[in-house]
């Protein structure tokens, strides 16, 4: 049993409100559904699906977290979420954003609050170009975290 597996085993159980585990068959990829709990008109009544991909060094290495589409589930509109599901959030960057004390729950809650606080029903600038570039691994992307409002 690897370090990552041991650590992930501890989480299954109590999850914060608005977050449900959809798929966790192995310790490579998990899917969780998240809902925004307040009355934000952009996200009210909608459920979104997050995919967590863990490597063997989790939790020392950050997991790869993206929104995924599923029947009846779309990618949420947000100025920091690209339409292919990639999330621009410093917490998820392998550089200085991630900390091994973070967990699946804490990441879900951060994303939940990122959605809750959003008032702009729009995609990031240059979304079409970014999606066309075909980069689906957030690890290969250098984001500039310049927006303190979210």
């Amino acid at each position, binding site marked *: 049993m690897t370090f990552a597996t041991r650590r992930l085993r*501890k989480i299954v159980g109590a999850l914060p409100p608005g977050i449900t585990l959809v798929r966790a068959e192995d310790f490579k990829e998990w899917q969780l559904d998240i809902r925004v709990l307040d009355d934000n008109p952009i996200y009210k009544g909608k459920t979104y699906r997050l995919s967590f991909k863990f490597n063997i060094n989790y939790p*020392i290495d950050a997991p790869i977290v993206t929104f995924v589409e599923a029947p009846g589930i779309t990618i949420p509109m947000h100025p920091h979420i690209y339409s292919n599901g990639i999330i621009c959030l410093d917490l998820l960057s392998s550089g*200085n954003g991630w*900390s091994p*004390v973070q967990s699946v729950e804490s990441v879900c809650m951060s994303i939940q609050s990122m959605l809750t606080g959003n008032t702009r029903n729009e995609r990031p600038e240059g979304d079409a170009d970014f999606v066309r570039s075909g980069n689906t691994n957030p690890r290969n992307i250098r984001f500039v975290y310049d927006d303190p409002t979210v």
Partner: protein
Amino acid sequence: MDSEQIDYQSLNYLSTVDHNLCCPICRSPLVDPVYTTCLHTFCSTCINKALERSQTCPVDRTPLQAEDVSPAPIMIANLVNELAVLCPNSELGCTFTCARYLVEAHLSHDCEFVYMKCRECGDKVLRRDAGRECLHQLEECTHCFQHIKKIDMEAHEKECPGLLGECMHCRLEIERSELKEHEFTCEEATISCSSSSLGCPWSGQRKELSHHQAACPFTFLRPVLQAHAERLTKLELENRTLRKRIEQLTPRINQSNTTEPLSFDEQAYQFLTEQEHMRQDMERLSATLGELEIKQGMLLMNESLRTKEELAGIRAAINGIRMQIHWLLTVRVHGTEHRHVVGGGAGTPSNSAGPSHPAEHSASRRLSDNFGQGVKL
């Protein structure tokens, strides 16, 4: 068993552990606890791994080096070391529980579910069986008479072909090795009609098959239907090969319709242009050849003219010289005769002999000259 082999972070604890005693990185009760200059506590392996990646405290992100980490107070270590845990072999059947720091001793001395070396043959054996006779000796199975290691006997008995098994159709007890064979002959086994491939929907117990077949219309028509089926497969095969042939041929026809005339025209055009080029080359070459011929002729004429002139000049010069020589010879002959006549007595014998020689000589020379001239002209 080595202490390194015990995976403390995956031990199961008897009761839920206060989260203050857990490492924030691995979420397990602290193992070998250490604390940082910013007063956060981690397992020593966890914080070392985290510092390899980022030199900040994982909790408050203050800069942190490996030397800023020191062993936690003994009280914390004692608190976690005295937590009650299940034996790591609990899944194999060990029910032992103890304080965490005693696990190592339990595994190395007491746990019955630790593999050890067999005293007699050195093979692997659980500790609970190690004290008894060697379990790696071969023993004969009482049912199938195969030789099997004693330690594997339990597993073998579950699949021993010599043991009796029950037929699931007729409930007859038969040796397991013969069970499969029996199924092909069991009177109670459910089978389908032998003409099921031709479409007979009947299925029932084997003992009723003969009764069914006496009335089965498919069995009556079997020869006819079979012949039809054979013919059908044959035709299908033929059809398939023909279709393939057509597919192979059609694109070729299409190609030949469209591309070949074009290529022919192109080829003809190419040939024609090539020919034109060659013709032009030929004309140019023949023109140059004519010019060269004329030039050559002129050169030759000039040269021969000059040579003729020179020849004439030379001939004239030779004639002149000949005349002069002639004249000189005659003068000399006359002169010597005259001298002979005038000064013959006065000359010494040596003197008289001297001039006579050259005269003879020049005469013979003249002769040869004359002779040569005759040949030349």
